[in-house]
């Protein structure tokens, strides 16, 4: 146990989780605030620093860089040393990265509200922050690559490490490509080809591989059984690595970008759906016969729900990317629903599952309340499903109204009921997350169990 304690830097994991959930609550709050503008009841109208346009960027950036990056880092600070058997390069470097990340997120938030946003979607981080983020990403790679490299000398690497290795390299390349090239060198349609890829690569080459890598670690560890098929794992990783960097242009279909790029992006996106199905089949077959876990194992419940949402997202992806469907749904709320399904329904769900698993071990305390877990889970799941359905339907309404040459204002008027439901469901999601965080906080107030027992041991039969 002592050995384990030194292997994983518990405080670092805890710090990233705490920072992550704080930014999650802030980010969700910003999203909720922004949604009120669509109902013409924005409370801070006319205030420059809280203009809805800026709050929207705060929403996406707080979620992407504040919540997801912090949460995923917490996950890999836990997983990498445990998989490899070696600690990360340096605890001090870990703390440097932690503080630099929080400062950069705060600078980004301040910069956006102050009016220094950059016109790159998902990369609105102000120009003066970008070089430091690049540097930070290199430091992260420096901290994690040594244990992975040492483990690779001992034996072939476990699946999770393929994903982590890929992500650590990709994110540096993606960030430099997306934030600097279209800003300084390449304008117009060619710039759009790069930005389109950046938008998707940030999801596909940072969040997705780290998320999947963590699933490949936590699911077998919690279930105490191996992944179903090694061949499917190989197919999943190499399929992702090959096709993902080629599909980002699907964000600019029917645009002035050369058509060969658009056609190939369609092919790559549909290929990704096949790859994702192999990965999910692998996980669902690993989980076979574990129906009980959905009732009484909280981490697995979050993971499994996230995977179901992921499959829906990717099936949707393969359909909506086609040039035919794009005619209707491009530029509409359909896409917004899709984005929420993947960023919240998949990766945030997985991270919350990971927190459910890790929090008792990190704090050496039992969870305060299982009832709160239930409320958090169902509020989030139902809230997200309702939001997804409302936005998807709104998207179809908007798309066909535009195609039908109705006055533009019709698409706004007819969307308001859907936007109202969206705001309500957003409220449900926030309530769920707040209960989750409250549960984390109340657990700290309980008596320590001495040694970190997990919820799994407490709630799983046998």
């Amino acid at each position, binding site marked *: 146990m002592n050995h384990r304690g030194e292997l994983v830097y518990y405080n670092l994991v805890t710090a990233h989780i705490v920072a992550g959930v704080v930014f999650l609550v802030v980010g969700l709050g910003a999203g909720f605030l922004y949604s009120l*503008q*669509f*109902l*013409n009841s924005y409370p801070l109208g*006319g205030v*420059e620093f809280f*203009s*809805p*346009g*800026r709050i929207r*960027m705060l929403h996406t950036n707080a979620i992407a860089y504040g919540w997801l990056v912090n949460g995923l880092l917490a996950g890999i600070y836990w997983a990498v040393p445990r998989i490899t058997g070696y600690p990360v390069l340096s605890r001090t470097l870990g703390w440097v990265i932690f503080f630099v990340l929080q400062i950069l997120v705060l600078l980004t938030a301040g910069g956006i509200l102050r*009016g220094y946003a950059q*016109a790159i979607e998902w990369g609105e981080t102000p120009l003066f922050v970008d070089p430091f983020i690049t540097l930070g990403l290199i430091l992260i790679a420096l901290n994690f690559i040594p244990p992975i*490299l040492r483990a690779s000398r001992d034996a*072939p*690497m476990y699946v999770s*490490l*393929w994903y982590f290795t*890929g992500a*650590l*390299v*990709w994110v540096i*390349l993606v960030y430099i490509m997306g934030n600097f090239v*279209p*800003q*300084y060198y*390449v*304008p*117009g*349609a*060619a*710039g*759009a*080809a790069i*930005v389109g*890829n950046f*938008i998707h690569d940030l999801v596909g*080459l940072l969040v997705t591989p780290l998320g999947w890598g963590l699933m490949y670690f936590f699911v077998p560890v919690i279930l105490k059984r191996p992944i179903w098929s090694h061949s499917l794992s190989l197919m999943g990783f*190499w399929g992702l*690595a*090959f096709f*993902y*960097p*080629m599909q980002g242009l699907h964000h*600019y*279909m*029917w645009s*002035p970008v*050369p058509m060969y790029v658009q056609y*190939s992006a369609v092919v790559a996106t549909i290929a990704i759906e096949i790859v994702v199905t192999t990965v999910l089949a692998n996980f669902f077959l690993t989980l076979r016969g574990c129906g009980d876990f959905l009732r009484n194992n909280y981490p697995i419940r979050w993971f499994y729900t996230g995977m179901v949402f992921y499959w829906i997202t990717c099936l949707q992806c393969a359909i909506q990317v086609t040039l035919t469907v794009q*005619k209707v749904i*491009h*530029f*509409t709320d359909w896409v917004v629903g899709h984005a929420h399904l993947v960023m919240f329904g998949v990766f945030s769900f997985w991270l919350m599952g990971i927190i459910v698993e890790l929090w008792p071990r990190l704090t050496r305390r039992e969870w305060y309340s299982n009832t709160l877990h239930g409320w958090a889970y169902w509020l989030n799941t139902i809230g997200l499903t309702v939001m997804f359905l409302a936005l998807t339907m709104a998207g179809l309404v908007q798309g066909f109204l*535009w195609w*039908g*040459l109705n006055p*533009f*204002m019709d698409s*706004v008027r007819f969307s308001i009921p859907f936007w109202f439901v969206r705001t309500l469901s957003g409220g449900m999601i926030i309530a769920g997350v707040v209960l989750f965080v409250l549960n984390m906080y109340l657990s700290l107030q309980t008596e320590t169990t001495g040694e970190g027992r997990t919820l799994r041991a407490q709630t799983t039969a046998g």
Partner: protein
Amino acid sequence: MDAKTDILIERFGFVFIVAGVGFFILGFIFQMLGPVLFLGNIPIRSVEEIAHEVPWQFRDLAEEYPEEFKRAFGSPTPETYAEALRLGRDIYIREGCWHCHSQYVRPVANEPLRYGPVSTASEYQNELQLPQLFGTRRVGPDLIREAGVHSNDWHIAHFYDPPSVEPGSIMPGYPWFYDEDGRPKKEALSIVTFVQWLGSWERR
């Protein structure tokens, strides 16, 4: 799969070089370098080149708001027009206009009927599209054919309080573009200039 390959592809070096660097560069060449080279023949125009000819909307602003215009820009010359375009574009970016308004007309879904001619790549080869402002969502209408659709006065009123000229609009107002008396400041004049420029080349 034989044992040797199996071991090789699961080592750090192979994953790092082939998946991490190799496939990324492959994607970059195919999906990004391609368009850059294809469109490389079209010269990239600077703002000064664009502003060579001052449009009537900019001169009209100088006539309609003489004091404010004089304070902000002086007189409507190519130099001040370039300055207004640059500032207008910066405001368009920092207020996040591009999150709710797209800037390209697609050849589908009756868009040419609604907005005007389909967009071509050459229209975007200029400094004001660095970074490009295609946009991915239309909460409000597309703006790439916006020049001349509305008058300057309409825009000045609209940026202050959109529902006042477009009932039911959910666009937020931007009162900080105006002084205490509701007269347009440099910001308001610039964003109107920028919006009146979008697609002006198609309106001649």
